C-alpha cells in the first residue's frame, strides 16, 4: 500500500522530466523553424527592427506642416513626411487543440498532429514575440504578454489530453486582437462555430489551421475493421472499409468546405495543413495571414 504513491509520484516525476526535456528541443525546433522565415522576404522588411523610422513619403494634401521632415525636404525641392513604423503591439491568442484525437499519427515515423500543431504554434510565437507582439494562450491560462520570457510560459501552458475531440476556447482572446486555432476539427463543428462567433464579437480575427494526417485524407483502409476514436468513446465497425472511402472523403471535403465558409463569414482565414509535409509552408501561411490582417 505504501508503494503505490511512490510509484505514482515516480511516474509523475518521470513524465514531468520527460516533458521538461522535450520542451527545449521543441523550443529549439520552433526557433529554427522561425529563423527560416526570418531569412525570407519578411526578414528584409523587418531589417530596421527597433528603429522607429519607416519611410519618407511626399506630403499629401492634408498633412499638417509639423509632420514635414524638414531635414529631408531641404535636400530636394519636394517636401517629405517622415513616417514611423506603427509600434502598436497586437495581442495574438493561440489555441492548440489538446484533445486525444490530435495524438494520432497515420504512419510510423510521422509526427502526430499534436506535435505538429504545437510546433507551428511555438514557431509562430517565436516570430511574433520577436516582432514585439504579445502572445498568449486561449482559455486564460497564459494571458498575452510580450518578451522572450513569454516563450517558456507558453510552453508550460500547452497541455495535452482531455476529451476525444476538442472544442476551441474563445476565452482570453483580446478584443481586436488576433487568434489562431490549431486543431483537426474532427469534433462537433457547433463548438467551433460558437467560438468563432464569440471571437468575432470581440472584433478578433485570425486563422483556422486545420491540421490533418495524410491517413485521414486518404483513408487507406480495407477489409473488416473496427474504427475507434483515440479515446475509445466512439467506434464504428465495417466489413469492408474500402467501400467507405468515397463517402468518408466526401464527408471530409464537406467539413473543410463548412470550415472555410465559417471562417470567411467572420473574416478569418482557413488553412489545411498536413503532417505528411514539412511544417514550413504552414508557418509561412499563418505568419502572412496574421501579418496581412495588420
Amino acid at each position, binding site marked *: 500500500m505504501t508503494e503505490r504513491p511512490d510509484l505514482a509520484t515516480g511516474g509523475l516525476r518521470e513524465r514531468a522530466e520527460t516533458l521538461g526535456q522535450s520542451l527545449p528541443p521543441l523550443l529549439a525546433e520552433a526557433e529554427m523553424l522561425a529563423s527560416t522565415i526570418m531569412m525570407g522576404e519578411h526578414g528584409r522588411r523587418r531589417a530596421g527592427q527597433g528603429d522607429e523610422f519607416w519611410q519618407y513619403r511626399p506630403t499629401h494634401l492634408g498633412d499638417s506642416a509639423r509632420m514635414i521632415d524638414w531635414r529631408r525636404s531641404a535636400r530636394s525641392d519636394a517636401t517629405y513626411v517622415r513616417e514611423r513604423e506603427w509600434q502598436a503591439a497586437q495581442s495574438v491568442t493561440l489555441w492548440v487543440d489538446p484533445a486525444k484525437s490530435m495524438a494520432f499519427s497515420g504512419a510510423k515515423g510521422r509526427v502526430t498532429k499534436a506535435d505538429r500543431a504545437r510546433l507551428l504554434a511555438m514557431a509562430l510565437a517565436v516570430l511574433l514575440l520577436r516582432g514585439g507582439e504579445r502572445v498568449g494562450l486561449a482559455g486564460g491560462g497564459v494571458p498575452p504578454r510580450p518578451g522572450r520570457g513569454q516563450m517558456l510560459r507558453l510552453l508550460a501552458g500547452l497541455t495535452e489530453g482531455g476529451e476525444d475531440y476538442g472544442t476551441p476556447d474563445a476565452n482570453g482572446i483580446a478584443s481586436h486582437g488576433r487568434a489562431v486555432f490549431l486543431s483537426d476539427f*474532427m469534433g462537433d463543428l457547433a463548438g467551433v462555430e460558437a467560438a468563432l462567433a464569440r471571437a468575432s464579437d470581440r472584433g478578433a480575427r485570425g486563422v483556422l489551421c486545420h491540421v490533418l494526417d495524410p491517413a485521414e485524407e486518404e483513408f487507406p*483502409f480495407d477489409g473488416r475493421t473496427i474504427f475507434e*476514436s483515440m479515446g475509445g468513446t*466512439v467506434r*464504428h465497425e*465495417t466489413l469492408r472499409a474500402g467501400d*467507405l472511402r468515397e463517402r*468518408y472523403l466526401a464527408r471530409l471535403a464537406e467539413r473543410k468546405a463548412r470550415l472555410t465558409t465559417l471562417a470567411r463569414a467572420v473574416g478569418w482565414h482557413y488553412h489545411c495543413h498536413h503532417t505528411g509535409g514539412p511544417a514550413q509552408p504552414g508557418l509561412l501561411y499563418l505568419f502572412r495571414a496574421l501579418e496581412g490582417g495588420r
Partner: protein
Amino acid sequence: MFMIGPIGFAAPWVLWALAALPVLWLILRAVPPAPIRRRFPGVALLLGLKDEDNETDRTPWWLLLLRMAAVGAAIVAFAGPILNPQAREPGTGPLLIVMDGGWADARDWPRRVDRAVALAEEAGRDGRVVAAIRLTDAPGEIVFQTADAWTGRLAALEPQAWLPADHAGWAAVLPDEGFETYWLSDGLDRPGQAALFEALAERGAVTVFQSPRPVLALHPAGFADGVVTVAASRLPAGEAAQVEVSARGPDPAGVERELARGVLDFGAGAGRAELALSLPPELRNRITRFEVVGQRSAGAVSLTDDSLKRRKVALIGGRDDAAEGLQLLSPTHYLRQALEPVAELIDGSLTDVLLANPDVIVLADVAVLTQAETDAVLGWLEGGGLLLRFAGPQVAASDVARMAEDPLMPVRLREGGRTVGGAMSWGEPKTLAPFPETSPFHGLAVTDEVAVTAQVMAQPDPELAERTIAALADGTPLVTRKAVGQGQVVLFHVTANAEWSSLPLSGLFVQMLERLAVSTRAAVPGAAELEGQIWVPEVLLNAYGQEVEAGEVAGVEGAALAGAIAEGPGAALPPGLYAGAERRVALNAVSGETELAAAVWPVGTPVEGMDVVPEQALKGWFLSAALVALMVDVLASLWLSGRLTGMARAAAVMLALMLVAVPGGVRAQETEVDPGEEALALEATTAVVLGHVLTGDARVDEVAEAGLRGLGERLWERTSIEPEAPIGVDIERDELAFFPFLYWPVTPGQQLPSGNAYRKLNDYLRTGGMILFDTRDSDVARAGGATPEGQHLQRIAAGLNIPPLEPVPQDHVLTRTFYLLQDFPGRHGGAPVWVEAAPPDAEQVEGMPFRNLNDGVTPVVIGGNDWAAAWAVDEMGVPMFPVGRGFAGERQREMANRFGINLIMHVLTGNYKSDQVHVPALLERLGQ
C-alpha cells in the same frame, strides 16, 4: 489396391475424411474473417455509414475453395496415392527365368538382373521355386530351388560375348512337369528360338520381357581403295539416328587413345549404315579396334586384325630397267603387281629406304651390297625386319655366299645354279613338293601349274634342311629362310619375274607372300588361309566389349576358327584376336554378314517392355500442394482483411513471383544481355571507375578495393579526376573495356586466367588499358623473382603480350604527370618499378630536359610496393594500415598517394605532360 484411374491408394479408408469437407465448408463459410481494430480520429466522420454489401461478412467462395483444396490435398496425401502401382496377379507353380545372356543383353544387363531378381523375390514371397538359365551356357539340368538360393546367384550372373545358339539342346533338357516361364529376351530372332518357345509354352504360361532399347551391331571394318569402311546394323530400324564410331589404337607413345571418329547416319527406317573413313596409313596401321561410342556391348566393338594393316615394302631391283618394252622382264614387275594393292611400296636406294624403316625389303636379284649397306641392313634385321631376296642371273654369277655363309643369305649357294627342262638340258621342268608342316606355307595347296626351269642351288650344309621352307619335287630347296636377331632373311631360289619359273605368275606366289607377312589381304580370311595352323587367342572380348587378357588358353584349329568367323563366336571360340604364325585374325562378335532380325513371338504371348512405368508415390506432391495452398491462403486472408500493406505486400508479391517464376527465371539468364552485365556496364561507364582484379583471396580483394577507394578520394581532392567507387573485376566474366586502369594484386594461389580471359586481357592491353601488377612483396624480395608472388606473376604474364620492360627511367613521363616524383613507394619502398622500355632510338635532344619517349601509355606497370595498402582507407576515410614510422611514414604514404595520382593521370592523359616541354618552343615560334 483401391484404384482411381492410374492412381492407387495405400490407405483408401482415409479418403472417407473427404466426406467431412462439406461440413468444413459450412463452418468456414459461417465464420467471417476477424476484424482489425484501428484507432482513427476520423471515425467521427464515419458514424452512420452503412456497408453497401452485407454478404461480405462471409469468407469469399474462392478462399473457401482454396482452403477446401488444401484440406482435400492433405487428406488425399495421407491416403497414400501411388501413380502406376504395380499390381500383378501372382502365379503358381515353379518359375523358370530364361535369359538370353548374349552380348545383346549387355547394354542393359543390370536392369535385366534387377528384373530377374525382382521376379525371383516375388516368386519367393509366394512360396514358389525358381530356376534361372542363361541360354548362352551349355544346356544342363534345370534345377528348381528356393528363390533365396537364386537371388544371390542371379546378381552375380554376367552376360557372354556371344549369342545363344543351342536352343534345341535347351529344349531337350526342359523338365517335364509344368512351370511358368519368364523369358528376358534380347529382342533378336535366332533359329531354334521359336521351337524352344513352343517347348516352354507346352509346360506353362510364357511371358516375354523385351527391352525397347535398340540393339547396335558393328560389323568388321573393311579396307578398299584406300578407304576404311565401317558398317553397323541396328534393330529396330526406327527414326533417323546418328551413331558415333570411334577408332582406337595406341598413339606413338604407346598409350591407347582415340585415333579417329566418324558418324554413322542411320536413315529413317534404315537398319544398316556405312561410314567411310579416309585415314593416313600411319594412323590406319595403328587402329586396334572400332567401337560405337557410348555402347557397352561386344557387338558394338569390332577388333581389327592385320587386314587393315599395310606393310611398308621397299622394292629394290638389281638391274636398271632401261627399255619400256622390257617391263615384263623387270625383276620387280610381278612383285609390284602382287604387292601394290595390299602394301605401301617404297622405292629408292637401299640407304634411303632404310631411313623409312620399312617392314620388308625386297632385293630382287641384287648380289653385292657395300659393307656400309650390309651393316645397316643387319641392324635393321636385328630390329625385326624381313629381308626377302630373289635369285637371278646376277646372284648366280656372283661370288656371294660361295665359300662362307653370307650374313644376308640364308644358305650358301653353289656356283652357277642349274637349268632343267630347257632346250639344252635334260629332264622336265620341276614342280613343287607339298609344304612341310614346319613351313609357314603349310596348308597352301600346291598346284601343278608352277614349273621351275632354273634355280640357284644351295650348298648342302647341316642347317639346310631346317632352313628350307619350300622345296621342289626333287627335294632341292626353292625357298630358304634364316633368322637374324628378331628379323629373318628369306631367299627365293628363283627370280622374281617369270624368267626362271612360272611361280610369280601363279596365285600361290601371292599366298606365299601373304604367309610371309609381306602382304596382307583386305578380305576376311577364308578357311583355306586359316587351315593348317594353330591360332592362339591373344586378346578376348567380354560381353561389354572390354578387352581382357586371354591368359594361357589352348590354341584352336584354323578350320574351327574359320567356322567361327563364318558363323559367329561361341563358348569354345569367344570373340577376340587370334594369333597364328605370321598374322593375327580378329574374331568379332558380329561378322560382316550378321543381320539383326527382330524376335517374333507367337500371337497372344504377353510381351512386356523392360521399362514398365515405375511406381511413383504422390504423397509428397499432394502434401506440398496442400502446403502451398495454405501459404496462398495466408496471403489471401491478409489481403482480404486489409492487413497486407507496404513491406508485407512487397514480400507477398516476391513470394508469389518466386512460386510462379522459378522455372522461367532460369531461362531469363539465357537472354542476350545479362542484366548484371548491363548494370556493370552502366556503373562502370557513367563515370571514371578504377578496377581491381578479383584474386579470390577475400582479404586481398578487400584491401585492393579500399586502396582504390582511398586513391579515388585523393584524386577527388586534388585533381579534376573524379572517380566513382572502385569495382572488383572478374577477368573471366566481366568486360574489361570499361576500365581505364586495373590494379592486379598478385597472390600465389590465384588461378591462371583461361584462354578466353587471356584473349580479353591482351585486347585490353593493346587497346590502351593499363594493368598495375603488384606482387606486394618488396619487403621480403629484391628483384622480384624469388617470392611465390613473383613466380606466379611470371606464370600469369607468360600468356600476356607484354612489351620489353625497364625500370622507370628518370625522365619517364610517369615522374611528372602531376607531381614531380623520382621514387614510387607504397607500403614498402625502394624496389624498382618496371614499365614499358623506351624505344632504343630515343635520344635526349639538346636543350630538352626529357627524351622524347614512347608515344603511348605503358600497358603494364609492375612492382611490389603494395600500393593498395598504402592508399587504403576505411569507410571513415582513415588509413587502414600503418606506413613506416612517424612523420617519415606519413611522408611515404603521401608519396604513395602521389604515385597513384601520377599513375592515373598517366593513364588518362597519356604523354600529354611529355608534350608540355615543347610549349616554350611553340610560344616562341608564335612570337609571343
